[in-house]
């Protein structure tokens, strides 16, 4: 039996409770569902932002996330995986990304969720730009990739 996988790239927000419920619907073998949701932060002081825009590479985003989900399923015994990643404009407090992993026992779900997030941060083709608070539309800047995200992803190399 293949593990049910849901991968969606969308501009709309997502309903976390509904997505979690979908992983346990009509089955009683799932003992653990781990949920990670990434949220747009507002920043503080001179770093305060009014909004964030996520650019993405349609087609490759789905393919790249699919590859990492397939690897997670190979490495851990999972009963289901859901990844939803938004694109477009979001404001502080908005959801950006959802990773759900389900398994019989909790270790697989916890580890697979962290693995997937570490790779989403470094190899999923999305690029964030931020609009500074204060209404000056010319102060938009691209967010830089972080070395600590590369280091986190490197931990999982076998």
């Amino acid at each position: 039996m293949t593990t049910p996988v849901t991968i969606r790239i969308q501009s709309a927000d997502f309903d976390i409770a509904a997505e979690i419920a979908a992983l346990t619907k009509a089955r009683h073998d799932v003992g653990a569902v781990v949920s990670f949701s990434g949220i747009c932060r507002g920043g503080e002081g001179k770093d305060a932002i009014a909004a964030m825009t996520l650019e993405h590479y349609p087609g490759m985003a789905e393919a790249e996330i699919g590859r990492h989900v397939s690897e997670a399923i190979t490495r851990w015994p999972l009963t289901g995986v859901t990844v939803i990643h938004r694109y477009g404009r979001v404001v502080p407090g908005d959801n950006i990304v959802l990773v759900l992993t389900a398994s019989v026992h909790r270790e697989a779900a916890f580890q697979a969720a962290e693995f997937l997030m570490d790779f989403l941060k470094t190899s999923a083709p999305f690029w964030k730009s931020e609009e500074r608070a204060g209404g000056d539309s010319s102060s938009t800047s691209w967010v830089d990739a972080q070395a600590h995200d590369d280091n986190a992803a490197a931990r999982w190399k076998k």
Partner: protein
Amino acid sequence: MKVLYFAWVRERIGKTEETLDPPADVRTVADLMQWLVARGEEYANAFASPKTIRAAIDHTHVKPDTVIAGAREIAFFPPMTGG
């Protein structure tokens, strides 16, 4: 082949995509970047720090020494900031 640009690479070049027909001696991703740099200042600006540029062929990440022959779609972009 179709070449796509994203984020500030796209902004500096001024295009989201184009169709290119590089000569046969442009063999690798690195060769293609150098060939683009010679086409104009906007490309030179985009690829000014080649080590920071990432590439994908047909939706898969590739290294600079990857051969481009047979590629349908090549994309150039900065390090990713998804998740």
